[in-house]
């Protein structure tokens, strides 16, 4: 009985440790991470600096008053969240025309991004940048998140968020890349960048959005079964069965059939 009790105690230890570690990281993150400026609290000075940055870096395509053209979307009313998503993920400014804008190293630091967002938000109301609490995976329920993700996201982004193909060379990017932040995931749902539809708060509530983030964070732990093989499903599994499984066994067969020296 004693041994059993000891083991039970032992069994819970990793969970407790994990929770502590999560709390610690969360706390540290909250302390250290630069808090994104939301449009409401933006100062007029931020808006002015943002406008300068906009005229220098964005106006070529989006126009000096950010109203866009036939091919380029207007930014009036897209809100700070859209700017924060596009600029912090390096998609904007766009470098070349392709089927879609792709993730690159961000060109602006957090402060400049916030200033740009403040400027665009001042042109018309739109979704604001979510607070840290809104995107904190520790507060979300991964099971609800899984259900929401399955119905609304998995068909494009794959069951665990590894990404997938759209038509004509477009694609839904992987959500498991190390540089995809929880805030960007939230903003993407909120603003529907490029091909992605908008999932407004009536469709996926803010709590559900946080649950989705909790689900994705859960996936970052990898696969319970071992190497995830890209989490791409049966095709990659089949490829590995041929390459590793049959490869090793044909190697063994050659050894068995060869005459010993």
């Amino acid at each position, binding site marked *: 009985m004693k041994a059993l009790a000891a083991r039970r105690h032992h069994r819970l230890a990793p969970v407790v440790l994990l929770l502590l570690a999560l709390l610690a990281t969360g706390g540290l993150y909250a302390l250290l991470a630069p808090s994104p400026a939301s449009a409401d609290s933006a100062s007029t000075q931020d808006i002015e600096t943002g406008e300068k940055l906009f005229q220098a870096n964005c106006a070529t395509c989006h126009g000096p008053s950010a109203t866009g053209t036939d091919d380029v979307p207007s930014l009036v009313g897209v809100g700070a969240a859209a700017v924060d998503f596009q600029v912090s993920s390096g998609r904007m400014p766009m470098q070349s025309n392709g089927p879609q804008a792709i993730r690159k190293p961000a060109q602006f630091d957090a402060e400049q991004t916030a200033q740009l967002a403040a400027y665009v938000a001042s042109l018309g109301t739109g979704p604001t940048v979510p607070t840290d609490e809104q995107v904190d995976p520790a507060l979300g329920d991964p099971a609800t998140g899984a259900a929401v993700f*399955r119905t609304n996201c998995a068909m494009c*982004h794959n069951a665990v968020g590894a990404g997938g193909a759209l038509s004509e060379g477009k694609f839904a990017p992987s959500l498991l890349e190390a540089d995809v932040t929880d805030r960007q995931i939230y903003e993407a749902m909120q603003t529907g960048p490029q091909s992605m539809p908008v999932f407004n708060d009536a469709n996926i509530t803010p709590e559900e959005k946080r649950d989705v983030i909790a689900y994705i964070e859960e996936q970052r732990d990898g696969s319970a079964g071992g*190497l995830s093989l890209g989490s791409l499903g*049966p095709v990659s599994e089949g490829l590995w069965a041929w390459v590793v499984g049959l490869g090793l066994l044909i190697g063994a067969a050659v050894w068995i059939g060869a005459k010993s020296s």
Partner: protein
Amino acid sequence: MSTTERAAAGTADYLDQRTGLGKAVKEFARKTFPDHWSFLLGEVALYSFVILILSGFFLTMFFVPSMALIEHHGAPATMDGVLMSEAFSSTLHMSFDVRGGLLMRQIHHWAALLFMAAIVTHMMRVFFTGAFRKPRELNWLVGIGLLITGLGAGFTGYSLPDDVLSGNGLRITDGVIKSIPIIGSYMSYFVFGGEFPGEDIIPRLFTLHILVVPAIILAMIGLHLMMVVLHKHTQYPGGGRTDKNVVGFPLFPVYVAKAGGFFFVVFGVLALMGGTMAINNVWNYGPYDPSPVSAGAQPDWYMLFLEGSLRLMPGVTEYMIGDYTLSLNVLVPAVIIPGILFTFLIVYPFVEARVTKDKREHHVLDRPRNVPVRTGLGVAFLTAFIILALAGSNDLIATHFSLSINEITWVFRILLFVGPWFAFWVTKRICLGLQRKDRELVLHGHETGRIVRFANGEYIEVHRPLDEQERWLRVAYDAPTPLELEPQTDARGVPRKGYKKERRWARLSRFFYEDRIEPVTPSELAAAHAHGSHDELEGAKAPELHAGDTTHEGDR
């Protein structure tokens, strides 16, 4: 006599008196098997099957084949409190709570993929070496039966966890069944016990998967192996290996150790894969629900060719016959294309025998190059299969190589028609080229790189003749000629019955054997030696040549 020996002798005597075991031991203990790595591919399939049964037994201890809905409690966190079928919940339970459960599930699934891969590679070996020829045509058919039931085993097992991915697979199956003219809707009800998905399909698939299909596979494996024993194994060509003997090692002890050891190697490799590589982690897909689907929705690899053919078929081919719908856009890719592929496999041995007019037993294998058209057809078949499988993965190709899925689909649509022909043509050319190279080698020997200058100033490179074994390998084959077509009328000028049919066969035979490279004959070799002075310097080393009743001396 030691105690163990006495005990063994006693047991043997006891058994023999009651079963006559001694006769079987006398017959089989030292049965000879030829040694070659490619002969072990079939064993990989056999052992994978044994491992499937062992690991499958483990899984049945924990799996609940029921579609009744329950709320799942416990690991993993993403599934806690979710409403799901008992099948899915028990799969989660055996993966997360049963120690070694996930390992067994993964071994089972990897073994299934390997089982099919080994069957396919084993068939490739049999096809390309002509091992399907008389007397083994029937065993070839049993092999195809095993391939098809293997697909069935995989399909029925894949769907059991009742997850979103396999559920969508079932849904596609339902769509294909419904496309069957006239009886489609009723067939769908027959399979699902009512409307898709209903509550019956998982228990039904379970019974098929753990009872019916394995029983059929076991029976066919028994038949397959019985015929192998009956026919004795084929062997690769080489000195001393003829159609009348089999050269190799005795079953006991060499093959008991090698083949028995190989079982453990196969199991070991699968344990390694099951322990380190995640496969079908169904909690990623979630319990079946008809609404969601995930990107990368594909079946296991052996079904990918069907998925690909469904993806390639343009939709315009759905027609109306009066008020009735004929979905050729589903029927052609899902029924007719696999039908063509399997028909090819089934009839090929009989067609080849017919156009070769071949009634002899064959136990020495062909080198693939020596039958260029067969090799070409085999490669063309594989090319079509691979193109279809790649088409079934077109979305992953698109994301991994930054291509447009629409363009890939178009490329594959065209490749499906062009690729096999091109592969056939190239392979046949390569085979003929290799045969010519063989002839060249036999006639002129190996290049040695030694340059010699004659007194008259001529330079030549010294060639070293092939030794007997090397030469035998390159000349011991038949190059059949096309069928001769008897005249349309017989001696009295009366038109013969069946002439047209014969002409068709003769035409097919020409396709097979029009281009052929005959093996070098002793007289050709002698002539080559007489004309070339290359080998003069090496003459002393040239082996003596014999052929039938004519003896040619080397030009010494």
